[in-house]
């Protein structure tokens, strides 16, 4: 037997494929952790001085004794390699360090706030998909004024920045029409406007991707075959074309969720919602670095997880896929 063939056969085993994906995901998270560590070390200014400033709220020079005690407390006096090893070791145990300002573990702070952010991002992803699919089902392969208008609207939405859209939506629906609450509220009604603000841009983008593929698949012989069996136009669109057209969009969903998470942070600030957004903005402006680098790490982990889910979903939709 050819050695190469044997290797290929092992590579096609689903468990091996899964293990490989987990390993490469771990590598991504590790790289992000290293990056986050380097941010902490390489920022200009003495870290002990920053911590004292953050705590006292003043800008000034602390006494050497004070600095030495902080350096000893955080281990800043040890060689960089040791600091890095300690950092990774603590990270493996779920310890992302302690906030300079709040004196609490970063992991705890993020865990408290990440729920609403993820909920917002997922709701936006779902809504983007629903809008994209509904408009595509309506307009693909039709030559009328509506299809031109809606396709134009998709392109328009795909190019509009979400925070600008958020402001417009706020003014129209919350301030003028008073349909939805203006700020804050973590009720379902309070989720509608932020989700829309976040989802509309993506729905335009998804819409164009799905529409292109949909139009192409509509002309395929197997679609005509289904029509020749007596299937209605709607049936053809739902049962045959949609699945094909959704595939490239599914691939993009992993990337989109990463984009949505960062978008959600902005939107949360605009709508003054609870979530990672407020915490991060506060941490960045006060140079509370452990929170920022902790958030980087968590985002990387989420991104890896989502990519894995997307790949699994793709394989379920398209059984022709070889494990690669």
């Amino acid at each position: 037997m050819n050695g190469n063939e044997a290797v290929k056969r092992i590579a096609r085993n689903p468990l091996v494929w899964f293990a490989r994906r987990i390993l490469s995901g771990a590598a991504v998270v590790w790289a992000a952790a290293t990056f986050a560590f380097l941010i902490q070390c390489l920022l200009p200014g003495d870290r002990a001085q920053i911590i004292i400033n953050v705590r006292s709220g003043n800008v000034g020079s602390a006494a050497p004794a004070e600095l030495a005690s902080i350096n000893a407390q955080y281990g800043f006096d040890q060689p960089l390699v040791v600091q890095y090893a300690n950092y990774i070791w603590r990270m493996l145990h779920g310890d992302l360090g302690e906030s300079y300002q709040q004196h609490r573990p970063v992991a705890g702070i993020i865990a408290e706030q990440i729920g609403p952010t993820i909920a917002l991002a997922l709701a936006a992803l779902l809504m983007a998909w629903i809008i994209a699919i509904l408009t595509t089902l309506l307009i693909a392969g039709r030559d009328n004024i509506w299809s031109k208008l809606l396709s134009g609207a998709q392109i328009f939405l795909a190019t509009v920045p979400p925070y600008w859209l958020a402001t417009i939506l706020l003014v129209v629906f919350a301030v003028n029409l008073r349909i939805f609450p203006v700020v804050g509220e973590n009720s379902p009604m309070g989720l509608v406007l932020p989700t829309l603000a976040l989802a509309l841009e993506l729905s335009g983008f998804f819409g164009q991707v799905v529409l292109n593929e949909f139009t192409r698949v509509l002309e395929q012989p197997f679609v005509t075959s289904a029509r020749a069996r007596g299937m209605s136009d709607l049936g053809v669109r739902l049962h045959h074309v949609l699945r094909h057209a959704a595939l490239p969009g599914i691939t993009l969903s992993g990337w989109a969720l990463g984009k949505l998470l960062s978008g959600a942070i902005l939107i949360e600030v605009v709508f003054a919602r609870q979530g990672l957004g407020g915490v991060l903005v506060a941490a960045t402006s006060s140079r509370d670095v452990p929170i920022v680098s902790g958030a980087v790490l968590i985002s990387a982990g989420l991104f890896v997880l989502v990519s894995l889910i997307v790949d699994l979903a793709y394989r379920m939709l398209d059984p022709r896929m070889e494990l690669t």
Partner: protein
Amino acid sequence: MLQVHLKPVWQQADLLTVDSLSVSFGLDISAKTVVRNVSFSLRPGRCLAIVGESGSGKSVTARALIGLAGRHARVHARQLSFDGTDLIGLNDRGWQRVRGNGIGFVLQDALVSLDPLRRVGKEIGEGLRLHGAVSSRQELTQRVIALLKLVGIPEPEIKAQQMPHQLSGGQRQRALIAAALALDPHLLIADEPTTALDVTAQAQALALLEETKTRGKALILISHDLAVVSRVADEVLVMRQGEVVERGTAAQIFGDPRHSYTRQLLDAVPSRRPRGSRLSSSTIGEQTEPPPVQSPPTSRPIVLEATNLVKRFKGPDGTLRAAVDGVSFELRSGETLGIVGESGSGKSTVARMVLALEAPDEGAVQFEGRAWTTLAERERQPRRRSISIIYQDPLSSFDPRWTVGRILSDSLSSNVQTSRKRQERVLELLDLVGLSKTLLDRRPIELSGGQRQRVAIARAIAPNPAVIICDEPVSALDVSIQAQVLDLLGDLKRHLGMSYLFISHDLAVVRHISDRIIVMREGRIVDCGTTEEIFINPRSEYTRSLIAAMPRFVCDPEISRSSTIFERGVA
């Protein structure tokens, strides 16, 4: 089996009536009429064949009958009625009732006519589900399996659960026919149901269609291949450029064609003509009548020698399977060696090994008396231009953005250096393959199928190769274009003296062009010899069955009904 009480033919009413059917595309001013004044009628139990080259409007005619001529098509007819239903002005719902239920339609191109993301069984059962013909999921499964059995697909329970890409081409075609037959429609329309199938699969598909006819169903068969049609058709319409140029009973059309175009189509069929004679009326270059066929040049030097080639691939179940198993042959200078086999017989793998695109697991190929497959790629590179290839689908072997001029210029060997010399050589090549120099600036997509294959041939001969591998070079072409391309290949060989390794599933084509033939099955050579030996005195049972399955003309309808030219059974 259904019991059908057949009335004498003259007492039966027409099932389908088409009177002055015209189809045009586009807006009023720029409208292009692709079908003009086509009329015919069809009774149950009869088969009408519509034949013509691609672009003759035969497919559009058929698709107009189920209201699927195309999104921008305008269909006009004085009368268009099926089984008492007026098809003119039918609304969507009305069409949906007719499609699948009254008229079954087998689309052209079986390989892409099944949804690649759905299981075969689901696709076949779709019509049953849509028209409410089954009451439970269980009944649906049973009906689907019964249909797969009906069309002769082995292991129907397993195949129903598989995806289309796991089925062979012949099985996909039969699955498609099964889907069209699901509701037992009174009329079955089959568009090119045998193109792209090898002979045994072709014979099975035809036998299936013929059986449908004997069950009292009406059949419309669309094909460019007259030999295929002659077996099943009762009446024939010959179409050209959207119009019917000749119509008549099968016996009339095949026995005593009136129109010159019909005669041209008939002459183009390789199996009707003496081996090596010209198939097309067009002449290329200064060619006149070809010299008589020479006996195989056994005294000439060997250019290519394959010894005991073995290549193994992993099968779907994970085990290694020998795609090519101990194949040896030699190719002499100026000789054409035909390799025949069904799809999956390993003939294309042999071609890839001869081209050194695939390394053999065992054995070796020697080229011009020197090592070839055992060399490192760097040493092989300078001699690569001495072996050319012509593919079945030229379109996908060209860079779509390149013009014909650039494609040909790129293929010239590097010792043609000045741009003027290159230009001259490109024009010379175009002339050799009978193309006008006005095509220089065209891109492949703007050429017809025949023109594309001529460009592919010009590209293959450009570096003056010693050997050209022709991998199914004419199987994607209409019979009349196929005839021209085969003539061209013959002319070029006499002119330039290279050798051909000619790979095809089509026995008639291989017989026409080859000096010697190898018959391959499941990776092994089962028969070899001169073309006369193979056809007059085949040594293996398999070769005999291949020859028996060859579509050939049956001019007398009485003979056609009683004889069993097509054997069924081989999956």
